[in-house]
């Protein structure tokens, strides 16, 4: 005899309907945002509350459960689009059936390298530490940095990306650089195949862009895995000429450099130099970063060759423009350039009686941060053109002087570079 199972049938239907209301498995949690995920809260009802009452409580506030942390019996609740998380936390909190309600907080792992002097690199991670080793050195402003640690979660660079350091050479034996050198490079001052640094400037620039990182030694470079191609175009006093610089650019881009850093300049236009830059940028697809200059005057060349070069001004540990940074409409971005610690040639340091690391000021240092960032971008997006890389760096910069000059300006361009915004996927929330 067949039985009528009205209650059982209706119960099953009600159960499935409840499932439809309370949803299925969880959504992946987002990686970053100010401090909590938008559009959702975590909600736990008291254990005695039956499911229909829970459903009513959610429906009453136009919310729905989109996932559940089963062991804790905590629901991930999607809230109405026109309500804020704070409002909904307060609203649910008034319900006596609710055990607790809270925002879905955002946690982000930050990749902090173990390099000995990383704490001194405020430019990479500024937590308000003292800047410099001398007693009485100033303290930085927290977050006045280029957001390196969070960006390194996304990428630490590609070994196939080569940064050409056109400068006074590079200390090829430096403990923080020797494993990063692609080749001994070329010396266009002495015309030999040994671009050893006899001045110190190039070694500092190279270390900022791509020192060996997480090796318990010295400093962290911006691009951990990129290689350095040393090209000596400045002599032991820090001077070079058009012939050396132009030859250096052409040699570097023909020998694998995809990023160039030019931390030198002159007030004079240089047509031969412009032609070499054009070849590098247009023909070889090479990104070029250059220092604006340190005389509080018009932007120097090559930085002033606006079309081909990312001209870089300098900020300090408070995200303020340094008083000596050159200015002009050619400025694209800024980066920290005041009291920057970096690698220094071992031989020169030993002669002076200090370890092979040194603090230095200058847009030269700022430019090297930009070169390092460009190398990271090129590493994860090799198909981008140099002008696209430049735009990513520009558009993602923090307009740190917006209270005085809103938007792009002649002092800091689009602002101080922000590695996180340039590299980490931007969250689309609405």
């Amino acid at each position, binding site marked *: 005899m067949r039985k009528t199972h009205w209650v059982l049938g209706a119960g*099953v239907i009600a159960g499935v309907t409840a499932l439809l209301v309370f*949803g299925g498995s969880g959504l992946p949690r*987002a990686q970053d945002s100010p401090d909590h995920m938008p559009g959702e809260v975590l909600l736990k009802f008291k254990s005695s509350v039956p499911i229909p009452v829970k459903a009513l409580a959610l429906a009453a506030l136009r919310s729905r459960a989109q996932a559940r942390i089963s062991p804790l019996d905590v629901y991930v609740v999607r809230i109405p689009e026109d309500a804020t998380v704070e409002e909904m936390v307060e609203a649910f909190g008034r319900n006596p059936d609710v055990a607790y309600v809270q925002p879905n907080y955002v946690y982000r792992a930050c990749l902090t390298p173990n390099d000995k002097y990383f704490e001194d690199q405020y430019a990479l991670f500024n937590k308000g530490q003292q800047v410099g080793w001398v007693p009485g050195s100033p303290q930085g402003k927290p977050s006045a940095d280029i957001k390196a640690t969070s960006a390194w979660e996304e990428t630490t660079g590609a070994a196939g990306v080569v940064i050409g350091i056109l400068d006074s050479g590079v200390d090829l034996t430096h403990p923080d650089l020797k494993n990063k050198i692609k080749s001994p490079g070329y010396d266009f001052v002495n015309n030999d195949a040994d671009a050893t640094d006899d001045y110190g400037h190039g070694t500092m620039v190279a270390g900022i862009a791509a020192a060996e990182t997480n090796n318990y030694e010295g400093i962290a470079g911006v691009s951990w895995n990129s290689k350095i191609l040393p090209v000596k175009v400045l002599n032991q006093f820090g001077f070079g000429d058009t012939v050396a610089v132009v030859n250096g650019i052409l040699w570097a881009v023909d020998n694998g450099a995809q990023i160039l850093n030019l931390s030198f300049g002159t007030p004079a236009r240089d047509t031969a130099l412009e032609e070499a830059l054009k070849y590098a940028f247009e023909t070889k697809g090479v990104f070029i970063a250059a220092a604006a200059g340190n005389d509080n005057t018009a932007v120097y060349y090559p930085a002033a060759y606006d079309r081909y070069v990312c001209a870089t001004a300098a900020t300090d540990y408070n995200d303020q423009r340094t008083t000596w940074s050159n200015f002009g409409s050619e400025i694209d971005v800024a980066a920290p350039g005041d009291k920057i610690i970096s690698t220094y040639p071992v031989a020169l340091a030993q002669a002076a009686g200090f370890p092979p690391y040194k603090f230095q000021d200058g847009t030269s240092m700022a430019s090297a941060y930009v070169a390092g960032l460009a190398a990271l971008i090129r590493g994860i997006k090799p198909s981008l053109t140099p002008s696209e890389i430049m735009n990513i760096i520009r558009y993602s910069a923090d307009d740190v002087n917006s209270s005085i000059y809103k938007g*792009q300006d002649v002092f800091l361009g689009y602002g101080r570079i922000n590695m996180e915004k340039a590299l980490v*996927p*931007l969250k*689309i929330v609405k």
Partner: protein
Amino acid sequence: MSGRRRSAILGLMTLGVVLFRPFPARAQDAEQTRTRVRPSLAVEYFSRTIAWDEGTSTSILSASSAVLRGEVEFQKAGHLGLFLGYGFSNFNGLVFRQLPFSLDYQAGSIGSLIWGGDFEARFISLGDFEIGIGAQFTMSLGRTKDFEIPALNATGSLAGKGTWTRVLAGPVLRYTGYENFTPFLSVSYNRIWGTFTMNETIGDLVGSEEKKITARGPIGIVIGTVFEPSDVFRVKAEITAVPFKKLTGGLDTDYGASVKAVVSF
């Protein structure tokens, strides 16, 4: 009582009588030979783990829909149905790294047109059990949705569009020993695939990235029941579980549920 209110109550009462009237004395005999057209309203929610970037990354696709459905029932031997409706698909968790600015999609659901068809055939009866096969094809055609660009020094536009297709097919075992209440169990091939295209224009930067998605776990287990309180009205409810192997090892399960209200003529 106003005339309008009275009419509404009368209308509801009439509908109640039509939907829940008892089976007529010889109705079941007649039913065996009838081919009937049944309109229905169905709502569904499912959540599936989807793989993308050549299967190296996963996120969740959750979708809900409400469709109007028409089915032709062939002398209790099976049915053929077509449906059309609207739904929402949530692709949260997709990450687009080929665009000039990489994007992490967390913007929630996008509306979509839902259409498809299904059929079920019953061909073996063993006492109170029936064995048949069922299949369903569903397509979700998402509309293009614009999103806000996060704080950058350039203006532009972001637009995304997602579509997916689902195919279900497999044997169905029904228990017919109860009146009004027919539980069933099915093990079905349950495949979802689709694309999500994101277009980015930020200042001078322009890019487009299409993400091919495929649901993990090809086989689903469906448990459900048909609840038939009257000759002309029935409700079908089911829960689907799709086990799958996680990229990180181990097993996990996705779930879905649907309720379908069917009216017969």
